[in-house]
């Protein structure tokens, strides 16, 4: 069920947050007194709140669906005939896949520079969405044009990658 999956993810996330606050607390021990006070107070507060949230979730007091202010009911283009649980699992997997694509894009920017990474990313992404090779090339060209035009027009600086190591 969606709710179960969301609940599991929520619990894992809360656990990670609690751990994060513990690490912040421990790392703050090395700071000098004036600089230490605020992070120590914040990390203890955060840890307590994370634990409280875990307890509330486990005791069923936190509703784990339909309470995000920004959440909206929208009809999906996805197939409507399969069970909600399947659809939700599929959406989770596909979401993770898209997150991975964005990760890949950023690592590519870092290594290859913005322009090359843009070409790789756009053509790859459009190809994945089953576009013809021609339209992939058109998209890639357009995106590079956009990048060039904006960076020149607005004087933006873009990551150059590690090409200089090769030459």
């Amino acid at each position, binding site marked *: 069920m969606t709710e179960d999956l969301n609940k599991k993810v929520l619990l894992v996330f809360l656990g990670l947050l609690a751990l994060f606050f513990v690490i912040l607390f421990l790392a703050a021990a090395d700071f000098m*007194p*004036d600089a230490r006070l605020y992070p120590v107070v914040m990390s203890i507060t955060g840890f307590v709140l994370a634990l409280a949230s875990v307890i509330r979730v486990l005791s069923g007091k936190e509703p784990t669906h339909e309470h995000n202010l920004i959440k909206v009911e929208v009809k999906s283009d996805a197939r409507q005939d399969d069970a909600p649980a399947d659809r939700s699992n599929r959406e989770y997997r596909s979401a993770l896949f898209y997150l991975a694509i964005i990760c890949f894009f950023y690592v590519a920017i870092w290594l290859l*520079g913005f322009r090359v990474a843009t*070409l790789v990313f756009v*053509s790859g992404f459009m190809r994945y969405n089953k576009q013809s090779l021609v339209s*992939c090339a058109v998209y890639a060209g357009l995106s590079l044009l956009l990048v060039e035009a904006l960076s020149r027009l607005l*004087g933006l600086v873009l990551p150059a990658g590690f090409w*200089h190591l*090769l030459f």
Partner: protein
Amino acid sequence: MRTINFYFCRFLLLAGVALFVNITTVNAQFYSDKRVEVIIPTSPGGGTDLFARLLADGFDEFLEGNPTVIPRQMTGGGGLLAGNWVVEQAPKDGSILLASTGQTTLRQILRQRGMRTEVSDFDVLVAVPMTRNVFVAAGKGVETRIDLPNLRDGDGLYTALIDPISGISFMLQAGMTDMALRVIKGYEGGKDRDLAMLRGEIDIIQQISLQYDATSRLFLDRGAIHLWNDGLLDVNGNIVRDAGFPNIPTFPEAYEAAYGEPPTGMLLDVYRAIIPLVGNAGKTILVSSQAPAEAKQALRAAVVAMANDVNYSARVIDQNRGYGLLYGEELDSALTRARNLSPEQIVFLRSYISEQYEIEFEP
């Protein structure tokens, strides 16, 4: 899929070739068709920013080969970020200049933690002097400068310190006069402190001379006393008045008038040693010491051209309250004097600062 790979390879190749051509193009005039960036390590609107923009404009106009010179902000870590970037990552082809301050040099000499640059990493191209004024609010027991000893007694004066090295001359002055200070930490910048002074939240303030017209007068309107100016070190090693403030005593003068004898001791020695650094060459433009000799030559020639241009030097003098660009031999001699803090003085200064304010130095 194979076609796509082929396209990618071609794109990669083209991109690579374009990059290569860019790097290896060499023209007769060193800077023709190049792009030069002046890195500004502070936020927009402050003294260093204005100075850097003025000089960027100067290089844009006077650098041979007519390159495009643009100022670029790179703030963070009190200037550490920009300095480290220029030394460790930026190209060393003369295309990157760095606006800096005497305080940054002092941080290098004292080896503040996080600072991975050294004085020898840079060549100083040009500098302008920068002094600081100290004002005390009305009603704090100081009617005239003669009343200075009164500041030792009482509950103490509230003052604001952004960080101990940027306010180093004031810290030393406070030490010499032995005034009772209650330091409030956490102010963000000079303007923030000015407002605190106008609101009556702090009683004594040090302010850079560039701010005089804008806000110092407001302190005076509210009855504040202009106690002294840092002063500058002349060629004979004497602390003399800032030409922009001919009627305001230097700190040693004010001290002598109030106490009947000139200040002495280690604090004064250190004070005399840091004044050329934070005062005479207070704001500087640097280039990596590894930049090609032709680049340095062209940059230095541009500075001479700026100084000799009537209109440009008028702009500089107008912005700097009467002081023009410091360059060439005059700059070299100021820098030599500025960098001769003795090992004992360095040790003393490090412990003096960290006793009063949280700061970390490399061992």
